[in-house]
């Protein structure tokens, strides 16, 4: 089946940079937007906000637990705090505070974790956030977003600010291929069907969306029709899009730069089991920590490139037929 859209996949800015730019725009529009960072503001790009709005920027130092709780106090008094650090530090060191100070009272705190996944590269596993989707989704009431490119990031960060409630935004370090036209309309909880197809569906999030498009283009040349869905909202999931994909294509591959355990794939499986049980395959990090290396080398070694998505699609099709 032919696809409607061709993707150039031109390299754009990293989602962390798009986040930082969106934050400045939000700061200009709403004086209640405030930002906390933990000594990584140059890397998370919150420094852009800090430069323009120094009185609304709180440098918390290397003390993530304190930072998350301060964010809760600010939200409790009517501010819209964006609390940012490397994803592994804000989620893991701040998790208890996210639980008791943010999720439990349901406060309007936006957590933005950058440098997620293994594509942070040379710094190695201590800095790699491969559990953050699982952790964030385990917090009742949280909305969990994982934009794939700069356009999606810009739109979803703004949508996060407009939503009254706790949100986790997962951003990456690497420059991300552009998938969307500027101004593309995004709604939290509404997945984007990037290509049409009835043989198999790939549900992907973050940087695996562009890899899935590459996989789709290769498979299309063989006459395999692939529906690629950008699941930018991991919680709440777009149940309709998943059920429709299961029903229409009978096979789903889920691709994420995250541990397979507790990740998007597991969450999609639940919806599939509850709606239209079908063949499923999973692309993600399998029960291990990665290592140092160039991001491209790591993604290749740990099975997170188009080749691995294609292999999963083939496995699914063999099982389906």
């Amino acid at each position, binding site marked *: 089946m032919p696809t409607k859209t061709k993707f150039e996949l031109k390299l754009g800015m990293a989602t962390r940079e798009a986040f930082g730019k969106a934050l400045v725009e939000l700061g200009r529009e709403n004086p209640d937007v405030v930002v906390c960072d933990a000594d990584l503001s140059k890397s998370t790009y919150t420094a852009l906000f800090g430069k323009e709005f120094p009185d*609304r920027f709180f440098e918390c130092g290397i003390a993530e*637990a*304190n930072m998350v*709780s*301060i964010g809760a*106090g*600010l939200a*409790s008094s009517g501010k819209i705090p964006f609390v940012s650090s490397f994803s592994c530090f804000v989620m893991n060191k701040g998790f208890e505070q996210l639980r008791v*100070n943010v999720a439990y*009272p349901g406060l309007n705190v936006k957590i933005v974790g950058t440098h997620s996944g293994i594509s942070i590269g040379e710094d190695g596993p201590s800095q790699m956030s491969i559990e953050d989707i699982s952790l964030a989704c385990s917090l009742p009431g949280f909305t969990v977003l994982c934009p794939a490119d700069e356009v999606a990031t810009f739109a979803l960060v703004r949508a996060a600010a407009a939503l009254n409630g706790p949100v986790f935004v997962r951003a990456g370090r690497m420059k991300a291929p552009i998938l969307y036209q500027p101004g593309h309309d995004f709604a939290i909880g509404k997945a984007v069907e990037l290509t049409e197809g009835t043989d198999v569906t790939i549900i992907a999030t973050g940087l695996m969306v562009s890899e899935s498009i590459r996989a789709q283009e290769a498979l299309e040349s063989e006459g395999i029709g692939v529906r690629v869905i950008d699941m930018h909202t991991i919680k709440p999931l777009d149940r309709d899009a998943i059920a429709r994909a299961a029903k229409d294509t009978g096979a789903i591959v889920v691709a994420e730069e995250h541990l397979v355990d507790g990740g998007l794939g597991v969450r999609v499986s639940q919806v599939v089991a509850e709606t239209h049980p079908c063949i499923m395959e999973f692309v993600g990090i399998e029960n291990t920590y990665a290592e140092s290396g160039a991001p491209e080398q790591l993604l290749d070694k740990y099975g997170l490139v188009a080749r691995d998505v294609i292999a999963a699609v083939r496995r699914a099709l063999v099982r389906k037929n």
Partner: protein
Amino acid sequence: MKQTKNVAELQEITKRVRRNIVQMIGEAKSGHPGGSLSAVEILTTLYFDVMRHDPSRPDWPDRDRFILSKGHAAPVLYCMLEETGYTPPGQLNTLRKLGSIYQGHPDRRFIPALEASTGSLGVGPSVGLGMALAARLNGSPSRTYVLVGDGESQEGQIWEAAMFGSYNQVDNIVVIVDYNKIQLDGFVKDILNLEPLAEKWRSFGWHTLEINGHDIPALQAAFAEAAAVKGKPTAIVAHTIKGKGVSFMENNPKFHGMAPTPAEMQLALQELQ
């Protein structure tokens, strides 16, 4: 609710509050009497004299805020909320029972007038700093008071908050340490000694006072001094007696986290007449 600076009137309230604490925990058959009884004068002085608040407007933006970081002392806070009229009268003895607004630890979902849901130790001062920063940004006169336990002060986050508060000159926050010297497993000095505690706060850059936490005029003077300090947050190390007011609970680690039996409850209520 009537605010008062009259020490005799405040002492009268503390008597009623102590009886209520013992009774509600006794009826619940579980809870933490020792650390509630040690904090009665601190909370009574705050709620009935020092804090600017209005129970008819719990969402008044410029109100002063109180966070019970040592959330297990919920009963003493619930007594304040009931006495001042934030919560309806006559329900204290539903403490810890299914459907009660008086949850085991303070829970904003059940009492929106609570400034924070607490129970996980070490987080209250940081949340308070967030509120104090918001007040500063808004040009609000609101002040934030946070009560922490001594055992709780073993949590690292307390000292993250201490560093942040002084470095950022957050002078509209007061941390009070309920220094009753006992935690669940025994005496603080035998578990992980905090001494020199006042020196620690001082060296972290806080204006630090050391007082008898059962002495209402001393508490009034300390809070007044804190309000006058500019450019620095204030820490009040309040020396208290765990289980204060009930002879067999005083200085007894057993009553950190154990309810009195019915017989002990009767005995305690007689002592508190």
